Structures are given as C-alpha cells and as structure tokens.
C-alpha cells in the first residue's frame, strides 16, 4: 500500500529552507515516525529538498573570508568526539536549543560566582558596591573571546560589569559600553582590560534599557559609537 506523502513533502520542503516552526515541527517528526526510518520516498524527498536548498547559496556573490581562518582551523586538534559531528538534520538542530540554554545557565551561574567574588574582593577605590539579593545577572555574547557579565538590580540605578579573558581592544582603543533604548545608544563609559580582566561600575539606570552593547572605540571615549558591537546582551528577556 502506498502512503500519502503530501503532508510530509510540504513540511520537508519548508524544513529544508529552515522555515519550519510551531506545531509543524512535531507534525513532521510524527509523520516521519509513522512512515518509518526506511521510507524510501521520505528519504528521497529529504535528500532532494536538502540538495535544492543547499544550492540556493550559490545564487549569492561570494565574499572574501578572513585569511587567517584556514590556519586557525588546521591548528585545531583533529579528534572526532561525537559532539563535534556536524549537525545537519532536523533532530540535531532541535537538540541544539536546550543545549544552548544549558550552556547559558551554566555560564550565568559561573558569572554569578565571579561577580560575587569581585564585588567582595575589589578594593573600595574601584567604586564597586555590594550586590543586592534581588540582583540580576546578564551575560553578553558576541564575536570576541572571553566572558562579560553585568549585574544590576531592577528599579535601582547602577550596574556592575565584570569580564575576564577579554582581548585587548587594539592600539589606542578602549571598550565602550552602550545602553540602547529604542534606537538611541547612550554611553555607559569606557574601560580597558588589564590582563583580560575588567571591572566597572556604571551609575546610569539600566531599567529602561533594551540592549547593552560593547564596541571598541578610540581612547577619547566618543559620545556615539563608531564601530559595530563586539558584545551584546538582551535585557528584554530579563525578568
């Protein structure tokens, strides 16, 4: 008996383009299970749609790649742990989200410890005050190495920034912290890392800020950003 593939074909076409969401993710999984892992027509549909989607990339004009990237990759250890396997199917992509959250939670937990340590250990001349019990911790993400976190208490002015493993921003440059509300960036101050570590207190009220950003700027700490952000933190999801 021939199975109907109309539903699965539509969902696979959308999934190949990365557009499947909502209940349709579960529907596709359910349909695949019902057809069986060895359903030849399902496998053929999946293969041909993935092939078609992959080839769409070649409609674009190629862009130059960082010259050093190739050597960085070749310098990496060439082991094959299971976790390093490229993720290129539906199940693997779904599996990424919880892992990302777990990593974020782990990073946040580590940063909480770091902030507590720095808040209690830094000398009073740094201006860092003791964190409140209702403090929120936000971690930044972006292109640069190292970690950066911000601790603040909703409804109260001031925030403490703590970073480690940060690269030097470059000759004659500093990191500048921006508070972005709507489309307006407001400088929160500039800081230079010492051995990759920064600790900074900002007096501004973080409460109305949507997004925090960090850029590398000239040492005179300009009033408006002149380069794209290297680190970002979304505050809209902070409860």
């Amino acid at each position, binding site marked *: 008996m021939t199975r109907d593939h109309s539903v699965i074909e539509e969902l696979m076409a959308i999934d190949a383009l990365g557009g499947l969401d909502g209940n349709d993710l579960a529907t596709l999984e359910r349909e695949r299970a019902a057809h069986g892992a060895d359903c030849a027509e399902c496998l053929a549909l999946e293969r041909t749609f993935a092939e078609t989607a992959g080839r769409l990339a070649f409609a674009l004009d190629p*862009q*130059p790649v960082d010259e050093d*990237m190739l050597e960085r990759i070749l310098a990496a250890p060439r082991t094959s742990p299971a976790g390093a396997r490229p993720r290129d199917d539906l199940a693997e992509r779904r599996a990424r989200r919880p892992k990302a959250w777990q990593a974020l939670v782990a990073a946040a937990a580590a940063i909480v410890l770091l902030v507590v340590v720095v808040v209690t250990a830094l000398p009073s001349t740094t201006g860092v005050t003791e964190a409140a019990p209702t403090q929120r911790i936000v971690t930044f993400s972006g292109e640069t190495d190292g970690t950066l976190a911000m601790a603040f208490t909703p409804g109260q002015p001031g925030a403490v920034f703590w970073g480690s493993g940060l690269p030097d921003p470059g000759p004659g440059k500093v990191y500048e912290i921006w508070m972005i509300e709507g489309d307006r960036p407001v400088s929160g101050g500039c800081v230079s890392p010492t051995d990759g570590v920064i600790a900074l207190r900002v007096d501004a009220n973080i409460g109305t800020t949507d997004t925090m950003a960090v850029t590398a700027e000239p040492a005179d700490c300009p009033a408006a950003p002149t380069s794209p952000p290297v680190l970002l933190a979304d505050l809209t999801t902070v409860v």
Partner: protein
Amino acid sequence: MGTTDLPEARDRDLMSRLRGGDEDAFRGLFHRYGPSAKALAQRVVRQSHLAEEIVQEAFMAVWRDPDAYDDERGSVKSWLMGMVHHRAVDLVRREEAHRRRAEAAIPQAMEEQADHADEVVQQLGLPEERRIVRAALADLPTEQRGVLELMYFGGLSQSQIAEQTGIPLGTVKSRTLLGMRRMRDALAEVER
C-alpha cells in the same frame, strides 16, 4: 556527463582524502566553498563578523569529523551550505531581537559591502553553478521566489513570513512547496 558532475566528483575526492587527514584536501575545500559559505552566512545574519564565526564553526566541524558527510544524502556543496545555513538561522532566531535593535542604533561602519565576486569566481564549476541557480530562481513565479528568499536568505520562519507579509500561513506553506518543487526540477533538468 552533466555539467556539475566533474566538480562534484572532485569534491568527493577531496572529502575522501580529508578523511585520511590530508590538509591540502581541506585547503582545497575551504578555498572552493569558504567564500560562498561566507556570502550565505552574511546574507542571513547581516553582520560580517558573525558570518565569519559561522563559517569557521562549520568548517571546523568538517575538519574534525569529515566522516559526518554521507555521500548517499547529497552533494558535498549542499551538505556544506546546509551546515552553514542551519547555524546562521539558529543564530538569527536566538539573537534576533536584541541584535537587530542594536544594528539600528549602531552604524555598520565596518561592514563589507563590496562585490568581490570577480576575485573568487575562477573556482572550478562555481560560476556555472551560480548562473544555473540564479536562472532557476529567476524563472520562479514572483510570489514563490519571494517566499523562498525570505525563508532561506532572510532566515524567517513560515509563521514570521505570514505575520510580516500578511499572507495566510497556509499560502506561505503551499508557495514554499511549489517553489521548491520547481527549483528542484529546474536544477535537475539542467544536469540532464
């Protein structure tokens, strides 16, 4: 032999050598597909430095575990671009809200806008592939092409497209299927 058979045979040979640890094979693959991977990632995430990260992560995975490629499941080039695309879309969905707000506020002074196509189009088979795919896309009905481009290059989900365009979700889905069928058939036809 079809127009794309020779490049694909070369790609599979590179993957075979890469499994044996051949660095030159990896260099060949990287030089051949790195620029297209960068173009794809940059189109989806819209920031050059994030696109570089995605390309590096994808090629790092290939370098570390070339056995992940299964030649039963398609061409090397589509497999590579699939990895890049999935990573780019994942990143966009994760960071979309705050990244786009920040983009609007902070000038993209460092973004690369130049068309560097001439520098890299001399790679075997790729100019022809580019011509074929562009022609197939151009032949799609406008409404189907629009949905495919929003989904693939824009990184939007079916629901986001429906929401942002006002097109009913069911119509988004049916246009996607029809567009993908036509693209698949057009690309296959060229190779016959």
